[in-house]
């Protein structure tokens, strides 16, 4: 049987290191491990040229090279007879290799020492399977291909939703039902604070709604800053930098104002897919699995299709909500709620809000709650339009015009999750109502700094 490079896809995931053998002009061999081999097309592979100077010198003196690549599923080994063609240090192919190297280095805990300078392109002359002393498992065990009808249904479900929460819900539902992944998060970009905030979550013991990923931190940050999907296919050797999440983490929120990022301790594969609208990254879908090599090329493509649709739908939702907010909110004062007093504290320095001493949220979502409370206390009303919030907060947070809906969603979910005596109820397109279990008080001056 003639093997093709496309038959060897599980060899190019960077899970098991490849091996490169070269020989100098005078015939002295050289052998080293290679972190990543990228399949360029059916006839070419690219090698990340971060390997040793001797290998690079040999390749230029003697273009004949032999590779051993290993199937990350089965352990099967293949000998590739290859010849050096050219080197690239810029351009789309170089960028692709650089991204894959970054993810691959992260999964062996060596991102600090592996840096891509250039990539070498080789023509593949022959592929040979290395005899195995054991019968190996069939490749890609047990998983059916992605169902296109199911994907189409999921896309339609997202398109049929008008509200941000429904869109995010539909996206996560699609991830679960079309692709069978049970642990996923949607993070929305917060330009104001330069971070990504968890706004949707499935499958975790604690939802992690409101948790944040700063800047270009980890896989999620890298996907957001590069605008490219990044995955890790074998976490078994990843150094876990994250702080261990203890049961006390939830209590610590009130002191740290930091919601712990949800974790799947047994995760073996992770993927971060950027949500992009016309070239601007608006968020990231993060999915993880306890299976090694869980995200095949087709899964990645399906996730990108779902995410692309959800990103556009969220943008449309914001626009439609803005257009629908023409009718002013009822300004009729309402009778004060009976019951015990509910105390809200707002800290301006990070816009964090606490309800009866429990940390709820910070950033834009915190500002919005503060605004509604200000109006409630001055006008006595409990219904507010997105439009007035957009206008009032827009001067300080101009990006709010594009993500007010998702911030309100985050606020609503956090209030629910913390079982706060305040609830945010949607009462129509672009309109919300604040419901409290008792008369509200706002402490916005004390404790600007903790």
């Amino acid at each position, binding site marked *: 049987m003639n093997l093709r490079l496309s038959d060897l896809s599980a060899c190019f995931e960077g899970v*098991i290191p490849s*091996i*490169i*053998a*070269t*020989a100098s*002009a005078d*015939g*002295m*061999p*050289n*052998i*080293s*491990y290679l972190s990543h081999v990228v399949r360029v097309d059916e006839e070419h592979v690219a090698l990340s040229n971060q390997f*040793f*100077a*001797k290998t690079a010198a040999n390749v230029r003196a*003697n273009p*004949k*090279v*032999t*590779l*051993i690549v*290993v199937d*990350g599923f*089965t*352990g*099967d*080994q293949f*000998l590739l*007879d290859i010849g050096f063609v050219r080197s690239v240090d810029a351009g789309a192919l170089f960028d692709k290799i650089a991204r894959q190297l970054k993810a691959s280095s992260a999964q062996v805990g*060596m991102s600090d*020492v*592996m840096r891509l300078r250039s990539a070498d392109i080789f023509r593949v002359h022959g592929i040979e399977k*290395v*005899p*195995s*002393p*054991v019968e*190996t*498992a069939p490749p890609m065990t047990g998983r059916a291909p992605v169902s296109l009808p199911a994907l189409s249904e999921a896309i339609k479900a997202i398109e049929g939703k008008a509200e941000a929460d429904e869109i995010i819900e539909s996206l996560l539902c699609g991830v679960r039902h079309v692709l069978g992944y049970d642990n996923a998060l949607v993070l929305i970009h917060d330009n104001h604070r330069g971070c990504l905030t968890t706004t949707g979550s499935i499958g975790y013991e604690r939802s992690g709604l409101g948790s944040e990923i700063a800047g270009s931190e980890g896989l999620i940050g890298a996907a957001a800053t590069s605008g490219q999907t990044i995955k890790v296919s*074998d976490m*078994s*050797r990843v150094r876990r930098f994250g702080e261990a999440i203890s049961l006390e983490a939830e209590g610590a929120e009130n002191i740290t104002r930091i919601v712990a990022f949800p974790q799947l301790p047994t995760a073996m594969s992770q993927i971060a897919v950027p949500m992009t609208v016309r070239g601007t990254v608006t968020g990231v879908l993060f999915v993880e699995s306890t299976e*090694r090599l869980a995200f095949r090329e087709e899964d990645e493509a399906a996730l990108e299709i779902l995410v692309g649709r959800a990103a556009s739908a969220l943008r449309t939702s914001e626009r439609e909500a803005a257009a629908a907010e023409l009718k002013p909110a009822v300004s009729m004062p309402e009778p004060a709620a009976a019951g015990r007093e509910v105390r809200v504290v707002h800290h301006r320095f990070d816009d964090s809000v606490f309800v009866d001493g429990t940390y709820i949220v910070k950033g834009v979502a915190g500002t919005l709650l503060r605004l509604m409370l200000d109006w409630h206390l001055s006008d006595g009303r409990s219904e507010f339009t997105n439009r007035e919030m957009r206008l009032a907060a827009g001067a300080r947070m101009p990006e709010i015009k594009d993500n007010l809906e998702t911030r309100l969603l985050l606020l609503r979910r956090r209030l629910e999750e913390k079982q706060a005596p305040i609830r945010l109820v949607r009462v129509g397109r672009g309109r919300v109502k604040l419901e409290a279990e008792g008369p509200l008080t706002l402490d916005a001056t004390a404790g600007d700094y903790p």
Partner: protein
Amino acid sequence: MKVDDRLLDFFNRPLMCIIAVADETGRPSAGRGVGFHLLEDRETIDVIFSAWQWPRLESCILQTGRIAATFVSPSDYVSFQLKGSAGMRETETPDLDRADRFMTAATDELESLGVPRRLIAPWLTARDARVARLVISEIYVQTPGPLAGMLAGTQAGARSQ
């Protein structure tokens, strides 16, 4: 070139081994080693491989008489490459014992690092075991990082590989 005390310690750890040779036309070939024996002179090392799994290794050594072998400690990536002239010698019973010990230690080590045993099994076999005797002329640090490619061993200098 002699293996120094530091390297001697390294060779007592669970290791993986990869081998390169080249034929008369300069085409390199690669394979995995499944055992070794450092001789008392510390300048010679026997490297065991499966001729069944890697049939080109023996013929290339017989053609060109040279070999490179890299040993790596899987837990911390510390690696050294040994190069030199090589010839084939008869395989003896102790070589098979060494191969068994090497494969068991390597498998256990990789498994402890999270690599499933079924994945490792295809890589390590002593079927049709052969022994290449390598007379060490060069030793290089192969650990990824700033020292990669530097000469090691008792005659270590500043020359970079």
